[in-house]
Every structure is written in structure tokens, then in C-alpha cells.
């Protein structure tokens, strides 16, 4: 997989466990680290 450094972040709209939907746009202006889990154990 080619590195995506420098590319725009992939758009997403995902709900968290409380049902709140998060979108990549809401993080504009701040640094965001997305930690993709493997399985939750």
C-alpha cells in the first residue's frame, strides 16, 4: 500500500460507542491521531 502522507485525510462519518457520529472535518485545526485497532481481544 502506497503511503498516503501528504494526501488529504480520508473522509469518514463513524459513530462511537455512545452513538455520537464523528467526522474528519470536525478535527480541522487540530492534530488528530487515529489508532486503528486490530481485534479488541
Amino acid at each position, binding site marked *: *500500500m*502506497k*503511503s*498516503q*502522507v*501528504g*494526501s*488529504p*485525510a*480520508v473522509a*469518514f462519518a*463513524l*459513530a*462511537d*460507542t*455512545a452513538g*455520537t457520529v*464523528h467526522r*474528519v*472535518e470536525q*478535527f*480541522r*485545526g*487540530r*492534530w*488528530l*491521531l*487515529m*489508532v*486503528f*485497532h*486490530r*481485534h*479488541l*481481544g
Partner: protein
Amino acid sequence: MRRHEEQVEKLGLEIAVVTFEARERAEEYVRETGLRWPLLIDRRRGLYSAYGMGRGRWSAIWGPATWWVYIQLIGRGHRLKRPTGDIHQLGGDVLVDPAGRVALHHVGKGPADRPAIAALLERVRQGQRDSR
């Protein structure tokens, strides 16, 4: 990452954890671990796929590096459980800058393959210095 919470907060770094597992399991995980950051549920693995996080090879999933991670966890007092869920799904880390561009993109080859937290935090610090 949680051991570095103070530095994360000081940097103003937002964290979103992503899982492909079902909501019930994700809720259970948050209860078990006290996770403070949002755990986003990507059941269709669309975001995983968009960032190239597919399925790992058996040798990478169960290789020596993985066993070393588990040994360290046991040494820190963690109790290991039989893994559940899709153990072949790869994870990774994606750091996005304030302009919405990918600043770091890491696809783990196996469970032990993650960028060092210190390196991630330093990348953010460097970005903040560069933007002044």
C-alpha cells in the same frame, strides 16, 4: 498511548480509536479498559481499507515479535485471554495535521508493529514548530 496522556493533552492532540468489531464488543472494551478517547466503529472496514489495512499473514500475526509483546504484557501484570474477533485484520496509525492532510501513515504488519509513541508525539511537536 495512555501512559502518555499528559503529553497528549499538553500538545492538544486529539485521538480517535477505531475498531471494526460490533458495538456490543466495543462498549464492553470501553468498560473494561476505561478508554477515555472515542472508540469509532467501522464495521464495514471502509476506513481500514482506505488506509491499506487489510489482512495480515499468519507468520506476522504469530511471529516472535508478537510473542515478545505478550511476554511484556504479562510482565506488566496483564492477564491474557484467548483472542476473539478477526485476528488477521491489520491495524495501524494515521496522524492528520490541522490542515487535514496525512502527516504519518503506518500500517502494522502484525500486533507488535506500531510506531513508537515518542516518535508520534515528536512528529506533532515538529509540525507545531513548523507552523509558527
